[in-house]
């Protein structure tokens, strides 16, 4: 049963990391290419896994590419990897972003060796979160991700980078601290650290603490990561001050850890509590959507703007999760992926604009469409995808989520919430178009004369993004057929 695909995917970046560490500081080119090769290899391998993935109905709820070795026998916790329909897309997403983030940071000047080391470590840790099926292992990777993030933001960041980085770490740690308590209480309730076992065992076991307490202990960590209103304020700071590639990964993959965890460890483990808590959490989700959008409208820093838009968009994920229907959960899962690539691209584009113009302030930018024709096109595509235009992944995801929520019977009045969510889409259109207009339209400004357009590396990178966005947008089934396998068993547990 042990096929070592996943381990390889996990380890490839580490190998690259070690090689880079051994390379001399000044061999920048070699360092970059090493990073590129290993992330690409990891991506390729994850695609292989995606292709080999068994999509038949027989595979519903079955863990595939499972690897299980004893790790700490004393507290029967294992080195247990595996993917199912829920995690596989996120693994793809991460390897994809990991590969592209190397391209995004191709021009990095400051201490490149350390930079790529941290970047690769970051990729491994996030992949680990999505792959691990043992709570302790999961938690380990969950925490591991903090270290590279801290260094990447506080060394290569901009602005109040030290404040933002420590804020990010502390905030996330608070969440994961609670989560640890939750995980332990789950363990002593069920006697198992197996992500897949606990769901079935917890129903029959005698809980050591009230299930509600357990629920919120687990939930809070993911809620902060997601981020759920009102725990979102770390996000704008972290995004604004992080280097581009890190913003890409942060928005693209890190936030998804929250949504993933919620589905995997909260909803499917404690469905009854989830059902009780659904109204409140859905309300918070909607607040997140609208509030995020409205606050976004006032932002003038491009990165900050997109960061707040993430708050708004992740609100849909939360809504989808706690509508507790199969469609809504699928929508949420799809929205995670779609938001991953869209916002990833948006940040990449902001990075480009910033790199060319050395300005991120909407009040100073303008008329760039003439100077950077390619960037304007791609940026617009990203923006339109983000506002949920049909044909882009954004539409598919949000539409499915809406359908799921609207048809949900989780609690009275969810239809109202859904409509409010739909209203949010208009505001999204508002700030996205406003942003595009501020940055690119209007008469060209002399101060930006001669700013270059995207070069080839950047073009490759952003075209990959666009391809992904359109692919998923036009044929979402490519993912939903996989996600289904992960969601349906959860629906059996929830029983709605």
């Amino acid at each position: 049963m042990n096929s070592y695909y996943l381990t390889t995917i996990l380890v490839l970046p580490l190998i690259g990391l070690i090689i880079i560490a051994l390379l001399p500081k000044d061999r920048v080119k070699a360092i970059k290419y090493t990073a590129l090769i290993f992330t690409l290899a990891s991506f390729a391998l994850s695609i292989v896994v995606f292709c080999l993935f068994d999509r038949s109905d027989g595979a519903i709820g079955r863990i595939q590419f499972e690897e299980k070795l004893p790790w700490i026998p004393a507290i029967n916790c294992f080195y247990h990897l595996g993917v199912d329909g829920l995690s596989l897309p996120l693994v793809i997403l991460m390897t994809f972003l990991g590969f592209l983030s190397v391209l995004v940071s191709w021009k990095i000047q400051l201490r490149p060796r350390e930079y790529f080391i941290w970047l690769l470590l970051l990729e491994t840790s996030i992949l680990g979160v999505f792959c691990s099926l043992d709570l302790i292992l999961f938690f380990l990777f969950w925490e591991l991700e903090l270290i590279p993030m801290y260094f990447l933001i506080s060394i290569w960041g901009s602005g109040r980078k030290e404040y933002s980085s420590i804020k990010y770490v502390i905030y996330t740690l608070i969440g994961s601290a609670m989560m640890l308590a939750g995980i332990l209480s789950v363990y002593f309730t069920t006697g198992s650290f197996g992500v897949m076992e606990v769901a079935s065992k917890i129903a029959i076991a005698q809980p050591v603490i009230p299930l509600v307490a357990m629920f919120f202990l687990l939930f809070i960590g993911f809620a902060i990561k997601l981020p759920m209103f009102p725990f979102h304020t770390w996000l704008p700071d972290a995004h604004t001050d992080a280097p581009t590639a890190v913003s890409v990964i942060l928005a693209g993959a890190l936030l998804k850890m929250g949504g993933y965890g919620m589905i995997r460890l909260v909803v499917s483990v404690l469905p009854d509590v989830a059902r009780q808590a659904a109204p409140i959490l859905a309300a918070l989700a909607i607040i997140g959507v609208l509030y995020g959008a409205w606050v976004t409208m006032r932002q003038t820093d491009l990165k900050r703007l997109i960061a707040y838009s993430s708050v708004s968009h992740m609100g849909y994920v939360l809504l989808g999760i706690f509508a507790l229907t199969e469609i809504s959960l699928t929508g949420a899962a799809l929205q995670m992926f779609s938001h991953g690539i869209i916002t990833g691209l948006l940040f990449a584009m902001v990075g480009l604009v910033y790199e060319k113009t050395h300005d991120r302030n909407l009040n100073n930018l303008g008329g760039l469409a003439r100077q950077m024709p390619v960037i304007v096109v791609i940026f617009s595509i990203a923006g339109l995808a983000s506002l949920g235009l049909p044909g882009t992944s954004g539409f598919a995801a949000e539409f499915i989520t809406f359908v799921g929520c609207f048809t949900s019977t989780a609690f009275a009045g969810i239809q109202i919430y859904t409509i409010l969510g739909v209203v949010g889409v208009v505001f999204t259109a508002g700030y996205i178009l406003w942003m595009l207009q501020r940055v690119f339209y209007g008469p060209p400004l002399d101060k930006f004369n001669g700013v270059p357009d995207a070069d080839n590396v950047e073009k490759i990178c952003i075209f990959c993004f666009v391809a992904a966005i359109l692919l998923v947008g036009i044929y979402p089934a490519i993912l939903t057929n996989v996600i289904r396998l992960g969601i349906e068993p959860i629906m059996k547990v929830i029983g709605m």
Partner: protein
Amino acid sequence: MKMLIAELPFIAPELTVLFFALLVILLDLFVKQKKALAYVSIAGLIVSAGFTISLWGASPNSIFFGTLALDPFALFFKLLLAVAAGLVILASQDYVSKFDRFQGEYYALVLLSALGMMFLTAAADMISLYVALELSGISLYVLTTFLKDKKSTESGLKYLLLGAVASAVLLYGMAFVFGITGKTCLACAAGILESLPINSILQNPALLMGIILLIAGFGFKIASFPFQMWVPDVYEGAPTPVTAYLSVASKAAGFAVITRVMLVLFGQPTWLSADWGMIIAVLSAITMTAGNVAALFQSNIKRLFGYSSIAQAGYLMVGLATVGMASTDAFAGRSGLIFFLMSYVVTNLGAFFAIIAITNKVNSDEINDFTGMIKRAPLLALALSFCLISLIGLPPTGGLIAKIYIFSGAVKVGLLWLVIVAVVNSVISAFYYLRVVKTMWVGAPTSEEKVPSSAALRVALGLCCVLVFLLGVIPGGFVGIAEAAAKIFNP
């Protein structure tokens, strides 16, 4: 007498250390190359460790008429102490070589204190316990004062006087226990206590005071609130290697002895152990909070580690409280405690070794002088960061596993509230640990010149970091050891 001779092999580790201590003093008289002394002492510790391991199989029992216990618990701690002392000596060389006199005495005192702690961890009788405690104590007082400069002497005096008060208190507690039971041997006293016709601690104030006074006495050694205030001051003043030694060895020994005493003496009946378990739990919560919060804006690295070691003591006390809550359990809490100590010892030593090397160069304990250290001493800075990360409890280090392990025990016995306090505390701790890390990684170095470090120190540092890493990545084996070592001789 014959029997006595027959039992000598059982204290072979201690005897070895004693022998080498004396040997070092003698060699000091006519050895010019003082570094040799260090290696002699290390050799002694290695031999002693060897004996300890060879004794591992020995059936748990008490030797020397119940004054000394021979059980995995004691043996493990002897091993741990030997390792700690060895590493400290290894790392002390640069530092000590600055003294023009008394280098031999320095190593000898380290060995003697280690000897005292070894006895301490094995003491099964209040008398031998008290004497061993004083042995380790006195040698540590001297070591603290070793620099004989303003700060060092001040710390020495503080340590001595407060230590004396603490031991008087401890003694009073023992007196009470003795008064109730009429025995000084822990196990026998425990036997009497169980047979006492009381079902509430309030019916027997002497017993209560005994427990409290013992907790206070040992609490001083393990730096538990409210007996911890000496720690930052003494840590700041003492020679850095001694600070390292204090922060790991004396703490480890302290935990060993308090665990043994509490468990053996007050382990039964269970309501009793639950009572003191709760006392410890509350103290632990306060201790870690006090330590962490106080450390937040600390600018002197040694003081920072003083506070940090208080906080870590708090986490360790979670394990101790667990022991109290489940005194009948085979190794609940104890194994966690032991594993945490393993990780803590190597981590803290590693951190201190890096600090020793750096402070030796920059001649300052101020954190600000660590700025840009990653450029001046990449390896040292990296290692220090790694150890700090382990102290926070982030992967891939022993710190995380240790916390998970020790907290899981607490959750099991229903101390979830304490665990939550503890995890929130480790969040707070992240702030000041990361501040040090940030200082070293971000910002331009004050001067360009590299920070040198002797091969010995680098070896010690490397060993620690590797151990921290292994503890974090393949903890399985170590957990096995911890559980094996959790067996306390308990008739």
